[in-house]
């Protein structure tokens, strides 16, 4: 076990976890933040996406002890206008990838509030949705400020 300091959604946490533990595991198992999903656990699908200092990161392949910045998870973005935009556009089917999609999209619109379709497709291509909600995700991000 090794001491771990994390700032998550504005709150500071002092934890104990074995070196080598992933950030996704710490968020889900130690902090109970299960909105961050683990779907592949090897950095290929984007379901575990969180922001570190506003930048999207794959938390399943991020070692918790290496995190220095502020972590934002879906729990910290629940009031983001994107949530309403996703629901309105029906950009959710089974929903397992959706929190990761919202986290990625929130980072995109923070940097670029009016992204084009092409920019959305570029920024969101790392978040796999097996149900194929992509057209609705694009629509949700295009209309997030409505």
């Amino acid at each position, binding site marked *: 076990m090794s001491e771990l300091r994390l700032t998550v959604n504005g709150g500071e946490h002092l934890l104990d976890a074995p070196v080598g533990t992933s950030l996704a595991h710490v968020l*889900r*198992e130690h902090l109970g933040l*299960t*909105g*961050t*999903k*683990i*779907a*592949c*656990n*090897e950095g*290929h*699908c984007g*379901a575990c996406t969180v922001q570190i200092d506003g930048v999207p990161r794959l938390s399943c392949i991020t070692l918790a002890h290496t995190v220095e910045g502020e972590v934002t*998870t*879906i*729990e910290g973005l*629940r009031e983001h206008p994107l*949530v309403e935009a*996703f*629901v*309105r556009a*029906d*950009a*959710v*089917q*089974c*929903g*397992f*990838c*959706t*929190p990761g999609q*919202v986290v990625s999209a929130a980072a995109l619109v923070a940097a670029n509030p009016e992204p084009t379709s092409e920019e*959305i*497709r*570029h920024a*969101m*291509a*790392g*978040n*796999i*949705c*097996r*149900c*194929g*909600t*992509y*057209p*609705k*995700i*694009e629509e949700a991000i295009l209309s997030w400020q409505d």
Partner: protein
Amino acid sequence: MARLIRTEKEVEGRFEEVWIVVEEDPLEQWPAGPLAVVGQPAPRKDGHERVRGEARYTADLKLPGMLHAAVLRSPHAHARVKRIDLAPARALPGVRAAIGPGEAHGLEKEAVPGVRARVGPGNVPGLEEEAGFAGAAVAAVAADTFDQARTAVEAIEIEWEELEVVLDPDEAVRRELLTAEPRRYERGDVETALAQADAVVEATYRTQTVLHNSLETHQAVCEWQSDTLHIYISTQYIWGVRQAVAETLGLPEDKVRVVCEYMGGGFGSKNSPDEYTYIAAELAKRTGRPVRCALTRREENTSAGNRNATIQRLRAGARSDGTIVALEGEFTNSVGWSGWNASTEGPMRMLYDCENVRTVTYGARLNTPPMKAFRAPGFVEGTFGLECLVDELAAKLDVDPLELRRRNYASTNEGTPFSSKNLEQCYRQAEPHWERRHEVRGRSDAVWKRGVGMASQIWYGGGGPPSYAWVRLGSDGRATVITAMQDIGTGTRTAMAQIAAEELGIPLEHVDVVLGDSARGAYASISAGSSTLPSMGPAVRAAAADAREQVEDIAEQRGLSKDTPLQEIVAVLEESQILGKGARGPNPTGMSVLTFGVHVVEVAVDVETGEVQVERVAAIHDVGRIVNPLGASSQVEGGIIQGIGHTLSEERLLDPETGRVLTTSLDAYRMPTIADVPEIVCEFVDRPDEHLTNLGSKGLGEPPIVPIAAAIANAIRDATGADVHQLPISREEMLRALRETEQREREKEKRGAPAAV
């Protein structure tokens, strides 16, 4: 009075006769077209929970004292366990129990005579001494953490006796290594019809093995409380899991409770309990603690089922006017170690009005991972072959492909009337999209060739009884629909709430839906075979109608007019509640309930590199009444996108020597991303099926994935002249097809004659 009747039930194209009890008088269908709530676009009732990451999936469940299981899987495609020693695993820190071959049971691999047929199983075996595929489960460990369990699994000492491995489906058919007797079908006289035909086309089509790869992997948490087994599971069929586990473990069904509140995708792969549930149940029994058994992504790719590969050797004959006079197909399904022999021949039998049809379908038993139902199993593969063949026929006859399809329109299903069929209307709606082909072709240049293709769709999706729902209405005028079904992500809660709101005449916001627990609701349909809405919707409407009739009785006794708002009528009830119950009635007797559609696809092909880009898909579907146009369009888009993956990029690869899966991760197994999505235009015929239930709705989950592969291949032919015969249409396959076409053209030029018909 309760009436006992015998009716036919269909799931995924497999039929069984069932007894059902019909209690209430049938309700008249609502008028066609959008109503106050039904037919109006509705965002998901559970949208916020899912988007905000609050929805609790099986993967999120953490019971007090819960242990984690890891599974030892065979590295060999066919081997017997000679010796196994679990002691080194048991000695490791955190380990609470270890079990080996024979200590947790899977389902029977073959249907047991006299036992009700189970729907949609791949029936992945439990822990067995004989591993029939690389990835078969042979032992398992429960420990405090998953890492400890995995370390312990690696410590298990095991010796294998390797057995003969069969991977080639043609070899399996030759040697009669089959999962079932070959299925033979014949009508008319194919030989004579082919001999007399003006044109005959013949081709062999191959489709690959693809993986469901639901983002939530297969998993269950099992907990024993006294003699009751509680199973929290990511499933498409709460009641099927309950029945199968009870039967396998020798428990009364009421002693098995199955819970699935939210689930992260199934696509047909989660219809049965499978080895992970039995492993968790057994380890939970031994340790007296709850146990989670969750597949890793890598296990998901080796051991959780697949859409099996097929080989289709097809022939079609036609008269010069375009009348198809003969269809013949020899189909081989590479079923794998277990699974069932899906109806790959179904479209050939059913899509066209052809007097002479002969098919044989072999299910090859191979040392490869088991097949499982995957979104319209058999018909996705069979439609690719048939609809490509029909276009090759159209090219040979020089008949417009849409016109050829119209000329061979089936007005009955092999003599049985359709409950409703509006495929002609689909074709009519397809015309403006089809007309675009001249303009699309005109946008070709030296490198990028553009073209337009189409394909038709036929599939089941009528659902059936039994299915039940209850409606609870409080004095505040709010209603709750209660039914022990599951919402696999298709918007079930929303559609059910819309139906109840419509029947009760209250706003959608005043209806909640409680589902997902076999202990808290009556029997409900499987969510597979596009059956959720057509099975459950009528039961929900009947329950709401029962409640509404009680409200009308109360209004009458209060001297209120029939038009008084429901909220006012029930306001006096205080703590009293109105409870309505409803059941799904029978399917129409002597009729075929089927879904129809057509896709028109525009592609661009880079003839130098073989890259194929799908640029536009127009999808027109006939699935009866549309309850939620917003959710329905999402289903169509999702099916098309999954189908584009199937057509262009997805393929499970095996090591041809060892039979091991090579594509076990999501970078190796390439599913579509948002960057791969074309423009999608989605249209519905939206006519209630007047013979089908009080709702007139059919299912929509599967139809959109059925025609897309053939439509893409046909668009490629339109763009380049090349006949694609294999999925996925990789760059290699595309370049092969282009070279073949060039060679054909050169030979034609040499002969100096136009193509012979």
